[in-house]
């Protein structure tokens, strides 16, 4: 899902991801397909280790930034 070798593409993917996460799906009617899909998506994202991947990505970014400051 994430491509740490391409920082711009990764950044783009993160923006889409952010839009999925910050959308206030609680405003949607409980019986709508969209509400069900969004609730299922967050659960799936956690189950499949999406947040773990995000943490790894942050680690990579920090390492790259530290390397850059040492140069």
């Amino acid at each position, binding site marked *: *899902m994430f491509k740490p070798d*391409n920082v*711009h*593409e990764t950044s*783009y*993917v993160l923006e*889409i*991801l952010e*839009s*999925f996460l910050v959308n206030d799906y609680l405003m949607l009617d409980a019986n709508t397909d969209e509400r069900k899909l969004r609730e299922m*998506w967050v659960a*799936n*994202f956690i189950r*499949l280790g*999406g947040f773990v991947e995000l943490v790894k990505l942050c680690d990579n970014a920090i390492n790259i930034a530290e390397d850059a400051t040492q140069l």
Partner: protein
Amino acid sequence: MSNVQIANFVKGSTGETCDLTDSRIFIILEFDSNKDGKLTLTDFLEFYRNSCIDKGILSTVRNNLRNHGFRQDLQMAPKPGQDDNILQLRPTIHDMPRFKLQQNQMFFNMLFQLLAYQSEVSKEAQRMFKMLNTNLEKFWTLLWLDQVPQTLNI
């Protein structure tokens, strides 16, 4: 056209005030063929023809026509609120350029490459990204979290 109507015409054409002693009224009245102090339609058209061809002030005539609400192709420009006040007929979102570009993965890949260039190019690429709809491939990959059902053809 009487001199009052000519004054109104000058006012509408230029956006400037024009009283009955304004020299422009007398210049236009030079085209009064029967010298009755009024312009006929033929006189008025002759005034326009003369301005475009003989006097060579086509750009001024164009500006005046624009002030009267005419476009470059001499059609009336649509006014706000009118049905045809749109640039092009676009019946659905599928006809919008940002939707068409969104479907072209090669275009997205090129934009990603441009992001790595110097700051000006990168800024323009970012602006372009903001105008486009979300990239379909990325969107569906994220939505299905790499678990696209085999039955779906996306």
